[in-house]
């Protein structure tokens, strides 16, 4: 190990040190503990600065970690997501008097895990990142110890997550057995040069890996845990859960497929095609029936996983770029939407039903406008960035000229039509129905930056997207 190796992981180290400081502060500080959030934000800011101070290209730790435009693009998304989750958590935790240092520390550990998933160029590092992400999340989902649903969600997530981790690890083992490598490039070389022991074993290994990824990003039929976990978890955590880990899962999925398994496409594209079509259809159709906003947004995030799976399936430069753009927009939008839900939620999980949003436009015009913007972007209306994300992903799929891909896009498009219906339901409640009581809703100012970033990205990048397009193109370029 050399200094340059260490340098390559400085942002993660900064976050880790911050997390440890937070754990110590938790023991020595008396409440109220507003400083925790600011300490965590300071750590994230430091990591962000270090991320940009690093040499940009290259492989470190014997090639196990790769630093490029791809990892940087995603790390910025992760850090924005983490910062947003911290800001949303401040008023949310205060409401239920659960403001504790572990919360922020665990959040930072999970963020480190995501960053390693994006930087990984070796299946073992990927696995480490995945575990570093998952274990804090199991705890965070059950953070409200006194709530039965939070506990249930945590246990469910832990058990199913452990299963999927088992699949994932077994897949890595099989791949190592057949190709003699865990390094992404080495695996590809082994497959290309036919130096593998058994092609069947390679495919079996890849299949198990696929299951692991499908679980992490909640593709149907591996999505069963998602609605319950999203609903049971504290809303501030749901905001994080439905964005960061999903982005990390998809990023790693895309990178592994493009760098290692692109040559075996003909063996698995049918499976991914079916997964994508099923995921978007089941996600959208089920979301229509949901009256609880957390569940509705959970199914919506399942549906978006289906759209993103299209990008993985297509696997071209353009589709990889489309996915980068989509992920950035999706993360910020979903985080903001859950942020609004978290702020409006009353003590003891009230006001989570769509009916509870009646007349919100009068009680809190700002939150109603932000939530509407998020819904409109998730539904993919122009001129929001959500539309551009869909445009880039789907046009890349059609551009392959493959009939199956075109049909998949038609399915996706019809699905977005379904999604319009349920995304507009809260908008109807907020603007077109009368409130039960007219009292203005008190709002914490802390979370406002999250919403401003949302406006900036959704509308700003919806109309002037070039900045995001350029970095997305560079990020996708690193994969090829």
């Amino acid at each position, binding site marked *: 190990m050399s200094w340059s190796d260490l340098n390559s992981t400085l942002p993660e180290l900064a976050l880790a040190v911050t997390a440890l400081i937070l754990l110590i502060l938790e023991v020595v500080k008396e409440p109220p503990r507003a400083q925790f959030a600011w300490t965590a934000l300071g750590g994230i800011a430091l990591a962000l600065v270090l991320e940009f101070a690093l040499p940009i290209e290259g492989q470190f730790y014997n090639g196990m970690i790769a630093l490029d435009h791809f990892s940087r693009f995603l790390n910025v998304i992760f850090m924005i997501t983490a910062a947003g989750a911290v800001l949303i958590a401040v008023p949310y935790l205060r409401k239920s008097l659960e403001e504790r240092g572990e919360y922020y520390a665990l959040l930072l550990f999970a963020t480190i895990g995501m960053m390693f998933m994006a930087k990984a160029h070796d299946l073992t590092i990927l696995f480490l990142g995945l575990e570093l992400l998952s274990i804090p999340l199991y705890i965070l989902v059950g953070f409200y110890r006194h709530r039965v649903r939070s506990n249930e969600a945590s246990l469910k997530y832990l058990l199913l997550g452990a299963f999927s981790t088992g699949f994932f690890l077994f897949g890595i083992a099989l791949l190592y057995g057949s190709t003699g490598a865990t390094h992404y490039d080495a695996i590809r070389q082994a497959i290309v040069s036919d130096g593998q022991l058994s092609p069947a074993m390679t495919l079996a290994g890849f299949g198990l890996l696929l299951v692991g990824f499908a679980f992490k990003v909640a593709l149907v039929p591996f999505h069963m845990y998602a609605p319950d976990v999203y609903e049971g978890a504290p809303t501030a955590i749901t905001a994080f859960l439905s964005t960061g880990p999903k982005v990390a899962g998809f990023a790693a999925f895309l990178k592994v497929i493009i760098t290692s398994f692109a040559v075996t496409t003909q063996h698995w594209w049918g499976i991914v095609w079916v997964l994508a079509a099923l995921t978007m259809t089941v996600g959208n159709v089920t979301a229509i029936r949901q009256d609880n906003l957390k569940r509705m947004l959970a199914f919506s995030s399942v549906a978006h996983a289906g759209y993103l799976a299209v990008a993985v399936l297509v696997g071209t430069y353009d589709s990889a770029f489309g996915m980068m753009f989509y992920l950035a927009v999706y993360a910020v939008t979903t985080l903001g939407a859950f942020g609004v839900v978290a702020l409006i939620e009353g003590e003891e999980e009230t006001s989570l039903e769509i009916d509870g949003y009646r007349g919100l436009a009068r009680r809190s015009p700002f939150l109603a406008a932000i939530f509407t913007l998020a819904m409109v972007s998730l539904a993919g209306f122009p001129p929001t960035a959500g539309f551009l994300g869909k445009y880039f992903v*789907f*046009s890349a799929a*059609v551009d392959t000229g493959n009939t199956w891909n075109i049909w998949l896009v038609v399915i996706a498009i019809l699905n977005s039509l379904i999604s319009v219906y349920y995304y*507009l339901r809260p908008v*109807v409640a907020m603007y077109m129905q009368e409130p039960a009581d007219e009292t203005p809703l008190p709002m914490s100012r802390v979370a406002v930056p999250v919403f401003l970033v949302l406006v900036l990205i959704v509308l700003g990048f919806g109309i002037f*997207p*070039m900045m995001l397009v*350029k970095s997305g193109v560079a990020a996708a370029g690193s994969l090829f």
Partner: protein
Amino acid sequence: MDWLAQHLLTLIIFLPTVGAGVILLLREAQRGLIRRVALGTSLVTFVLSYFIFKGFEAGDAFQYVEQVPWIPNFGISYQVGIDGISLLLVMLTTFITPITILSAFNAVRQRVKGFMVALLVMETAMLGVFAALDIFLFYIFWEAMLIPMYFIIGVWGGENRLYASIKFVLFTMLGSLLMLVAIFALYSQGNAQLEYYTTSYLELTTLKLSPMTQTWMFLAFALSFAIKVPLFPFHTWLPDAHVEAPTPGSVILAAILLKMGGYGFLRYCLPLFPEAAVRFTPLIVVLAVVGIIYGALMAMVQPDMKKLVAYSSVSHLGFVVLGIFALSLQSVSGGIIQMVNHGLSTGALFLLVGMIYERTHTRQIADYGGLAGLMPRYAAVFLIVTLASIGLPGLNGFVGEFLIIVGSFNTQPVAAIVAVVGVILSAIYLLWLVHRVFFGQPAVALSGIGETGKGPKLPDLTSREWAVMLPVLGMVIILGVYPQPFLKRIEPSVTTLVNTYWQATAPAGIDQADVEIIDENKGNK
């Protein structure tokens, strides 16, 4: 000044949004100021668009073209420009919007700020649709109209507004999303043939597409436009949306939004997929004619005035589609003029229905009678607008219908004959409406003293209502008596469109009749 001339079109498109931004900064309580800003913005927009109309030189090339790279990696640019066809619709939009805003002074009294913002954003999107020369930009504007209209119906609408607004959005989205897939495919074809990505309309029209590709793409585009027109049997969203929308919403919907479909057929379906258009012409003509008759028959039996006018729209827009797909110089010109006419006269009918509704809070025809005695001026205006809508010579409706029917006789004789029946039917249902509402014994509930205890219950047109109606009446007469300035500007574009269409389709089985039509068109020039 040069700079202004070069960016005039962009200025017109985005000025309403700037006005909306200013209104957003005001407080809801500053209602008078909000209204004045909205009206002022739309009037300035109209004045600017008049300079475009004046400066427009007759010719088939696009004018006032502006191009700025937008997402160059994918060949997407901000490109706008207008030809004769879009010029007229741009003018219609900038003309109707101030009138709509003025009518909203009376019709909308709750949440004025939000309403004006939605209306002005709508204007930007509508102008953008007509001016866009980049198919990506076109789609952005096309979809951007949906959300403000959704709010206009859903927030300020009638009792059943939630159902009507979501139905409107879902119907329109269904079409436009499939069109989006076709746009992807077109973009991909462009990349394959030109070897670079582009979404520029002018470059995409040069592509040679295989018949199979054309068929699919045509169907996807045509579905979207057919829903918007609306062509029978895709019209079911329209009566609901019209009845539930507030008066200004109905006016915008009828006068401008419904023109998007016809414009889309002309601008995209015909030039991009001429061979497929030939193949589907019989089907679309049949649907148009069915729409003419069906809409008229439905209008005849409606007990609700607004619904009657809504169904008359279905009928009148059938004429427009017939004119477009009859594909002769006269019929297409007539179709375009008829789009403008319909915008004026049906818009005016909705305004008039709205005015009487504000006084009596009922739209049921059975509740009225003898109104001519109580509100003579209102009755006179209503009659003029009705006659214009029927197509009385000397008023605007005649010009359009005449051109459409004359033009269609060459290419679609059977359809033209059936369409004439539609004209007669429209005279029946509209005059019958006038008869039931304005003549006969005054209904008891209508006469007497108003709620305030002062003055009659049904005051005649107020000065503000005159201000709303007079410009429309003026245009109705100008277009009816002297349509030449308008026809002159659209003719070159239409000639090019019709000729390229017949030429593009000629090798695929030309017969003598087609050649004669081409010659005839040249002769008419």
